[in-house]
């Protein structure tokens, strides 16, 4: 008999997961970073719920240090979809004294996002937050369930995960708890790019090779910006780069590339020899268990 292609199978799985969340939770929210993974989530939500509107709002945790191209893209995309956007601002968390701004050349708001996210979840009463994390990104992620439970403190306990069988997800929680749900858990970076190509999804310009002022630190190339203080020897220079992930400007590195079209990027990814987080995310390099530690305290 005819079977589904791998992209169709992954797509159907993700749609099924999103519909389960909508059906079983009272106040879900879809987290959107402006990155390719959450852009894929938006398309999957269209596939799951159109011609009706999404049964949840879209939320962006804005560090205030995002690439301007990404914020511009976010606002345009949400307007096209006609859906509701909630912005949770790290700047506001700082202003309200919930978190303290780091200082110096290594300062980043990446860690501060966790507090902003948890505060926003509580403030809006969200009980399920869907995000675009994938199991191939990092070793701790490979062990996380698609429906991942967080206690009152937003903590993930890897030893107390619910068994996840067939396509039967148990979304039951107590008051005060919430679930993180990862509909594209089983996708790889290459799957995401192939899907972007197949669905002809528009991406922020920073995903494609472009000339920009960068500087070198720890073997990675960072965008020179007002948000990052440079050491005296970190002289900026112009290079053709693209970004494999979209995070805060303070912790997202670019790679040298001439891939200016989607097809070029897919070809480059298919032959790449370094993982996306290993290459471009300073936040995962800090320690061997970096991601695991951040997840335990509620990082997405």
């Amino acid at each position, binding site marked *: 008999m005819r079977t589904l292609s791998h992209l169709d199978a992954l797509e159907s799985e993700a749609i099924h997961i999103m519909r389960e969340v909508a059906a079983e939770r009272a106040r879900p929210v879809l987290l959107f970073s402006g990155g390719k993974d959450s852009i894929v989530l938006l398309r999957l939500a269209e596939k799951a719920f159109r011609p*009706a509107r999404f049964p949840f709002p879209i939320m962006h945790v804005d560090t205030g240090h995002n690439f301007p191209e990404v914020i511009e893209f976010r606002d345009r995309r949400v307007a096209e979809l006609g859906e509701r956007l909630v912005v949770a601002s790290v700047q506001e968390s700082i202003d309200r004294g919930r978190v303290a701004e780091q200082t110096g050349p290594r300062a980043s708001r990446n860690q501060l996002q966790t507090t902003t996210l948890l505060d926003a979840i509580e403030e809006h009463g969200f009980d399920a937050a869907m995000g675009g994390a994938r199991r191939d990104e990092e070793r701790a992620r490979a*062990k996380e369930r698609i429906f991942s439970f967080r206690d009152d403190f937003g903590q993930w306990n890897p030893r107390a995960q619910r068994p996840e069988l067939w396509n039967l997800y148990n979304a039951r929680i107590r008051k005060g708890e919430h679930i993180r749900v990862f509909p594209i858990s089983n996708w790889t970076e290459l799957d995401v790019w192939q899907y972007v190509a197949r669905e002809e999804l528009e991406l922020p310009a920073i995903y494609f090779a472009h000339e920009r002022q960068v500087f070198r630190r720890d073997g990675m190339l960072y965008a020179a910006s007002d948000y990052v203080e440079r050491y005296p020897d970190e002289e900026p220079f112009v290079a053709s780069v693209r970004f494999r992930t979209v995070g805060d400007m303070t912790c997202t590195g670019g790679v040298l590339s001439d891939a200016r079209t989607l097809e070029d990027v897919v070809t480059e990814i298919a032959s790449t020899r370094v993982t996306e987080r290993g290459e471009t995310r300073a936040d995962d390099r800090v320690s061997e268990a970096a991601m695991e530690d951040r997840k335990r305290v509620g990082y997405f």
Partner: protein
Amino acid sequence: MTSPELMASELLRLVTAGSVDDGKSTLIGRLLYDTKQILVDQLEHIEDASRRRGYDYVDLALLTDGLRAEREQGITIDVAYRSFVTPRRRFQLADAPGHVQYTRNMVTGASTADVAVILVDARQGVIEQTRRHSYIVAMLELPHVVYTVNKMDLVGYSEERFDEIVRDLSELASQLGLHDPAMIPISALKGDNVVERNGAMPWYGGPTLLEHLESIELGRGLNVDDRRFPVQWVIRPMDDDHHDYRGYAGQVAGGTWQAGDEVVVLPSGLRTTVAAVDTAAGTLERAIPGQSVTILLADDVDVSRGDMLADPARPPIVTRELVARVCWMSERPVDERARLLVKHTTRTVPARLDEIVSVVDVATLQDRLRPGRMELNDLGVARLRLGEPLAVDPYARNRATGAFILIDEATNETVGAGMVVEAS
């Protein structure tokens, strides 16, 4: 490898079974390494870690160590899911660890798998663990199983030893009614017959493990004969453009669906026909098992989440009584008379565990009758009474409509997995 070729490839889901000593992590590491899935930073990482541990070789098993506690204790805590891709197929691998909570993890990993890869240590042959793994594979109705007889290098690559194990495995497989068992002599450590052949066993003329996985026929675990569609979500835009649109969204659980098909809505028994199979990208000619679609019905009948659309000529059984195989997954044992929730397809109903009919002793494959309670990792047969009817099929006939999970209403934990044997 160009992207159009990759885009057309199919997804094979596998589960690996074996303990640390069987070399399972090494096998997975070998598969990933020899199919060139290991990227430079990951390789540097395990080279470093191997050096720090004083090894004089790169320990491929370290690739699959995930959590800090696991690295510290040298064990695996939880099912890990990883992906790899070859020019022929995209693979999704569930790696179930092999210590105390083994059964629970393996049942979990096997529930979504098309094929099980069971490791056998060539020095030990068929042991209790092999029987346990095989029993679970049979119980979960996996359409394919591969036995990899590992550590062939430690038995001098002996054809005689392999043949001996093949005889024992064949006997076990036929005793359990396993589908299509394949047997491959390998050395994960040396890389023989995993991806490469290496010439160490010239007497073996069969495929390598990867060649075998690439050639397995897909879709055999899906039911294409009996149309089943559990309604997951009702799409009602209620705006001016789609005033009368009312779509039933869900994932096809059996058969192929197309416009004009007769439909019975269960449990109500109402009858109608399929008006169209819809998606956000437009109308489909037909939908096949596993596909998430939206079904439009010809008549305005009362349908909501939890209802099942089915072929009236071959309907499922609508029942309040189930006999099912159960795997108990909670550290707290369960006694007869316990109240639980059953989640089956998109419907969750209260249930009572009327009788624990038997629990199997996996070492001997003998049933212990009326044990009165089930403990963590017990596999048995139970009789359940349901507070509301469910539309079910025997699990052997349809994995999607024969499976359910058990939930403890007090703790919200998933405490068991169930597979319908019969319903009345």
